[in-house]
């Protein structure tokens, strides 16, 4: 647990002064508080002796109350604000760090899980600092102050408080272990529940289309029950602690009652001493009462800290280590040298010893069956995947030597999955540079054959899209993402099968625009359609991560290989014999 919490040092250390100051003030307030039983003792003794002069004890209580109010407020605000600031910093750091991670990380963790960490786990750390510090002061200092005051009143009676100590200590140890297990389980089950709901509703259309509602409801019942069970177990451990800890501390009270009464009767202490003692006992045993919640707080925060640093300790997936001498402008030549890439150490390579040189201004179409490595190839050029060094060269410079920001600013990749943010359309189209002029945005929309659709929307460019706004069709989304790529006028344009949901007419229009725009620029275009690919300078056919055919449309048709076959099938439609050939493959 200590190890988990120590990691937080880098976030908490910054507010050391604030926290220490707060703690010191707490100490002062505790001292003040402890004088109240003493004033009460003086008062009770005077009353017992028939002396009606109560002015001084009462005045001192009132004065202490006012002073304590000021000091304790100050202390609390300091410490609680420190908690807020740490949470603020943690959120900030987590956000920044998550942005540096990539597909490898998110194939292991879901977004729902990350949200739980960002929300619940950070809150737990914040609670540890805000309340934990206060509780810790109570733990240590309250008993110190109370003990010294008690020793002053009666050393003998003070000994009575000692017997239950070892019991409390051992019980707290056990409860700590149990609580840790239980709270981890509750957090896991809650996260499970969240993921379940998220996944379910993301696929609700499929569920309803397949009439799977009842199955899903039954499935949810299991997750729901598992969470309730975990919660119940945790509540039981909590409640046991609430019952057992005060009972153990009551042993001290009973000892004081029994022996104290005896001492009063023998005249060793006054009745005021006993009264003050009983009051101080509750202050002295307070630490043992709060020990439980403090334990929980630390335990939970330790679990939360582990979960947070689980993310923080992930290195960024792509190392940004630019060489100073690279040119600031990318011109557009690409060279692949023996490029081999696999997603995991034991996986089959997706790209296998690929060699290819693409001249500046050339347009290349890449075709190939599913899983042949087309998307992986495009991602290597912008380093969306961990590109090996010495394999991919842009303008004869290894891509790994470019600053990442430059690489991604000057190479535009339009990914296969169209994704739009829940923001106005305008902001989505000019996502990389929000400062662009409006007519530039319209121009890009025009090139992507999207401007008419925008015109038809209620608020044009200001239309909010996505879940909270207008839902776009697959084709519209694709054209929007395309516009987002075209607006950048990048010297290198990589299009990853981004016409799949637009109809042929629209595609024709866009291809015409591309033809016009691509002058002086290098274009790589992944497609399945011969009608799309045929316009390119060269066509590359990938299979199992290797280039199996390369050449112009006419060359490849003449060659009579895979491309020619594709062209024929797409023109004439597949026949039974085609199926036989392909399934033999």
């Amino acid at each position: 647990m200590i190890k988990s919490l120590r990691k937080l040092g880098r976030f908490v250390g910054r507010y050391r002064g604030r926290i220490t100051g707060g703690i010191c003030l707490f100490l002062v307030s505790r001292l003040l508080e402890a004088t109240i039983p003493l004033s009460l003792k003086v008062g009770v003794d005077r009353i017992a002796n028939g002396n009606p002069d109560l002015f001084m004890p009462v005045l001192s209580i009132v004065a202490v109350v006012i002073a304590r109010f000021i000091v304790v407020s100050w202390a609390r605000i300091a410490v609680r604000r420190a908690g807020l600031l740490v949470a603020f910093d943690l959120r900030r750091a987590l956000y920044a760090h998550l942005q540096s991670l990539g597909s490898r990380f998110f194939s292991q963790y879901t977004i729902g899980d990350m949200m739980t960490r960002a929300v619940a786990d950070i809150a737990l750390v914040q609670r540890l600092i805000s309340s934990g510090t206060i509780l810790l002061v109570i733990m240590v200092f309250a008993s110190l102050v109370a003990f010294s005051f008690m020793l002053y009143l009666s050393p003998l009676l003070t000994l009575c408080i000692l017997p239950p100590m070892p019991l409390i200590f051992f019980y707290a140890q056990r409860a700590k272990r149990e609580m840790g297990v239980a709270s981890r389980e509750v957090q896991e089950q809650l996260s499970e529940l969240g993921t379940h709901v998220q996944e379910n509703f993301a696929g609700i259309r499929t569920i309803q289309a397949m009439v799977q509602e009842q199955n899903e409801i039954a499935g949810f019942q299991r997750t729901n029950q598992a969470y309730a069970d975990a919660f119940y177990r945790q509540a039981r451990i909590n409640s046991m602690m609430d019952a057992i800890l005060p009972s153990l501390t009551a042993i001290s009270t009973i000892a004081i009652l029994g022996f104290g009464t005896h001492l009063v009767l023998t005249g060793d202490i006054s009745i005021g001493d006993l009264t003050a003692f009983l009051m101080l006992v509750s202050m002295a045993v307070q630490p043992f009462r709060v020990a439980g919640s403090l334990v929980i707080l630390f335990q939970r925060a330790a679990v939360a800290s582990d979960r947070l640093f689980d993310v923080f300790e992930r290195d960024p997936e792509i190392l940004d280590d630019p060489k100073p001498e690279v040119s600031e402008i990318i011109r557009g030549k690409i060279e692949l040298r023996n490029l081999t890439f696999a997603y995991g150490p034991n996986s089959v390579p997706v790209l296998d010893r690929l060699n290819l040189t693409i001249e500046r201004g050339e347009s290349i179409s890449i075709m190939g069956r599913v899983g042949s490595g087309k998307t992986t190839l495009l991602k290597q050029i912008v380093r969306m995947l961990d590109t090996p060094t010495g394999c991919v060269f842009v303008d004869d410079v290894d891509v790994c030597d470019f600053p990442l920001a430059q690489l991604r600013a000057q190479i535009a990749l339009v990914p296969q999955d169209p994704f739009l943010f829940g923001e106005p359309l305008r902001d989505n189209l000019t996502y990389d540079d929000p400062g662009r002029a409006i007519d530039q945005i319209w121009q890009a929309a025009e090139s992507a054959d999207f401007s008419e659709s925008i015109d038809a929307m209620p608020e044009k460019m200001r239309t909010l899209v996505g879940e909270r706004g207008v839902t776009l069709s697959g084709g519209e989304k694709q054209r929007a993402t395309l516009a987002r790529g075209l607006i950048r006028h990048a010297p290198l344009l990589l299009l990853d099968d981004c016409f799949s949901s637009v109809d042929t007419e629209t595609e024709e229009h866009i291809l015409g625009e591309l033809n016009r725009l691509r002058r002086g620029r290098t274009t790589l275009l992944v497609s399945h359609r011969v009608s799309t690919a045929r316009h390119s300078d060269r066509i590359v056919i990938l299979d199992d991560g290797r280039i199996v055919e390369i050449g112009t449309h006419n060359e490849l048709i003449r060659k009579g290989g895979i491309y020619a076959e594709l062209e024929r099938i797409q023109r004439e439609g597949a026949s039974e014999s085609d199926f036989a050939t392909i399934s033999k493959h």
Partner: protein
Amino acid sequence: MADTQVEIRDYSMFDAELSGTAMNLTLLRRLIKWLQPYRRTFAFSVVLVLISSTLAVLLPVVMSIVIIDHIILQEVDVQTLDLGTIETTEWLAQQSGLSMIAAACLLYGGLQLMWAVTGHLHRMTLVNSVINGLRDLRQDLFEHLETRPSSFFDRVAVGRIMTRVTNDIEALYELLRGLGTLIGEFVPFLVALIIMLAVDIKMTGIFMLAIPIIALATYWFRQQTGSLFRLIRQSVSTMNQNLQENLAGLQVVQLSHREKYNHRRYDRINSENLKFESRSVKLETLYGALNDSMVSLAIGSILWFAGGDVIRNQISLGGMILFTRFIDMLFHPIVVLGQQFNVLFRAMASGERIFQALDWDEKVHEPLNPATLPKRLSGTVEFRNLDFEYDRGIPILQNLSFTIRAGEKLAIVGPTGSGKSTIVRLLGRFYDIDDHSIFLDGIDLNQIHSHDLRQRIGVVLQDFHIFSGTVYDNIALGDQRIEMARAVQAARTVNADRFIRELPLGYETPLSERGQNLSQGQRQLLAFARVLAADPEILILDEATASIDTETEVLIQEGLRELTRARTSILIAHRLQTIQQADRILVLDDGQVSELGTHEELVASGGLYSTLHSLQFQDTDDPPVN
């Protein structure tokens, strides 16, 4: 519907900010409905809290009255209410032969033990009934949302639904637990108050004066923080939404090198949240410190006001000390109430949102007496003068009429936005349509229950969703009838079998939420397998073939040929060679039938279809295909 009045209600306000401020009794009344099945446990818990509260009150009585008054001072001048504790102590001393002091300690210890046991049992019975009740509520909520229509999900974000099912229910748990705590606080409050009145009326009166001060402070605090808490809630929700979206679109963020910009934007919201939170911390601290001070002040005033009375023998010293022991019991409930305000109000808002969701009766209207479908439909589909619009005033389909014969393969083509997908959605009854618009085997679609209907129609939607689970789970989707052999058979028919077998664990390979370990083409093959395994009488493919490479496409076409044999099929695809499989082709333009006929007929007619066709396959430098 003919037989039900379709009510007109604005369903666009699901996300609107609710009042969320007033202590809402209706809400509690509704909540109680879910606790009803567990009322025995709950009642037991109430009995237990009464017992444990009484025990909690008896402990200081033993301390002050038995020990201080009776044993130490041997008070005879003033008799104070002792609730039988003195007698019990004397009886204990007699029975065991212990001294009075030892007997009093024994009694104290016994009461403490009973307090611990009853307290634990009280908490556990309370938690038990509440957890079970809320588990049921959550289940009902899930069930309710799960069965909302597509129009609902068109508008409401998944994140919002998630908040209701998780966070809002959690808040309700806090509410009920808070109420439980309040009961546990106020019962001892009342018991202590009764005893105090019996001990000394004047002192009790003075005490009661402090309560309005605390109440007033609580009111002030509530006034100050009410709007602040709402601001905090809003900023937290904006912050989370921002993060969630950033993660979902991380690839785009990185490709647009927008990391820094987004981070700055997140920072702004984060800072705003910090500002509000800091202000609320200040208020909360001052309020809490004030409450603490009141407790200490009360000790001072007891001393001041009761001191003289003790000397004049109007009250015993033990009685006065008893008062100091009761301070906590009197003030604590109000302090707790103040602490719970935050929780209570957040829970109120959550409760409102939950019940709003449960009351959200938006649905596809089902027939009162649904038609019984034959065991096997022949599969004739007729569209008769169908008009449809999603938003009022923006027609999507207009006066659409055509018939698909049983077993016929009809391809629907047309430009983006011409309404192709809408036809599919309406045929699956995902949206309400007018009566007598669509007929299946001559039965009005509105007379068929949507569940019955969807079991007969297999739809492959544009956005294919993968569920966590194995490949097999994703094909069978929990349908018991689909065994492994049948799933494999279906996969083989649509040629998905090959790639599945290449996965590390074959059909048992777990798939991740977003299906990242599968390519789009593979996901679509899987979608086919899924539909085929269910063996529907009518098959609909919605643009799903669009991004599959030619080889896979060929595999699918072959599978499709098997699949569509003797099955009414509607194919929506942009790729004309896929459509060539179809018996007839319907060209849709602006929500209207523009052309309908066989491939040859349409090419010959020289209309929209022939233009589309030539665009894809004929370039000026090529000889014409046909």
